């Protein structure tokens, strides 16, 4: 039998922040959750803005005894694309979950079965600080408003106010 060449690099390669495919991430989440432990990773994309922003670090906990409820932000395997998604549960119907991104009004991910849901987002960290909005008791209200299409309206109304608040601090600081 002929011997294989030794790939030196393969024996010693170590990296921080190894880029992983969605499938790899799903495998690792499942493996860590099987040990009953939460999984911490960096979220990408804008579909959950403003509650989860591109680059936020999130902690995903296994559901264990309880099941997902409306308002919970979950990581799940998308029924059509089979990719990993982090979106909010809007409703439960016949043991399946209606899930949608907060920033994707009118574009639900479909009815997702329980076995495709990997866990619940319990912590969001932005620039080293915990962001609590969107994960506490208000999450049920957010799900309700999102289901009625109200998040878009709120965002539209809040935009001019946000602009004013951004422009106004100088006179206040001057005092």
């Amino acid at each position, binding site marked *: 039998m002929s*011997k*294989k*060449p*030794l*790939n*030196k*690099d*393969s*024996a*010693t*390669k*170590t*990296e*921080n*922040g*190894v880029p*992983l*495919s969605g*499938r*790899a*991430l799903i*495998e*690792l*989440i499942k*493996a*860590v959750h099987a*040990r009953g*432990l*939460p*999984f*911490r*990773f*960096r979220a990408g994309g804008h579909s959950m803005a403003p509650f989860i922003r591109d680059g936020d*670090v999130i*902690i995903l906990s296994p559901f264990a005894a309880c099941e997902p409820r409306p308002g919970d932000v979950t990581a799940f395997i998308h029924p059509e694309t089979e990719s990993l998604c982090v979106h909010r549960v809007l409703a439960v119907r016949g043991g399946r979950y209606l899930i949608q991104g907060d920033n994707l009004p009118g574009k639900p991910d479909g009815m997702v079965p329980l076995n495709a849901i990997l866990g619940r987002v319990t912590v969001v960290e932005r620039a080293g600080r915990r962001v609590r909005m969107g994960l506490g008791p208000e999450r049920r209200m957010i799900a309700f408003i999102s289901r009625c299409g109200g998040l878009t309206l709120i965002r539209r109304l809040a935009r001019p106010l946000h602009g004013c608040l951004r422009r106004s601090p100088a006179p206040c600081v001057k005092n």
Partner: protein
Amino acid sequence: MKKIRLDMVFSQSSDVVSREIDGSLIIVPLTSGVGDMEDDLFSMNETGTEIWRMLDGRRTLGEIVETLTGKYRAERGEIERDVIGIVKELIKRRMLVEETA
């Protein structure tokens, strides 16, 4: 760090989760009770994965070097350096535990 000898035996720490995905092995540390992708993640491909599999708490490093020497087209000394190098790296990240007789 303690000197690594070829008669030493190591096993994989229970504080890690490892999975072979798309031909490479990914090791996630479970430090402070969380599987942390933002922490030191360790990625190895073919040879590294083979070494990781053989760190089973039974084989000495010398036996691992012997197995690899029979399999790869490389000098024993080179393989020895690679095995010790990777073991050192894994110990530093607390991914390996030394088995004592």
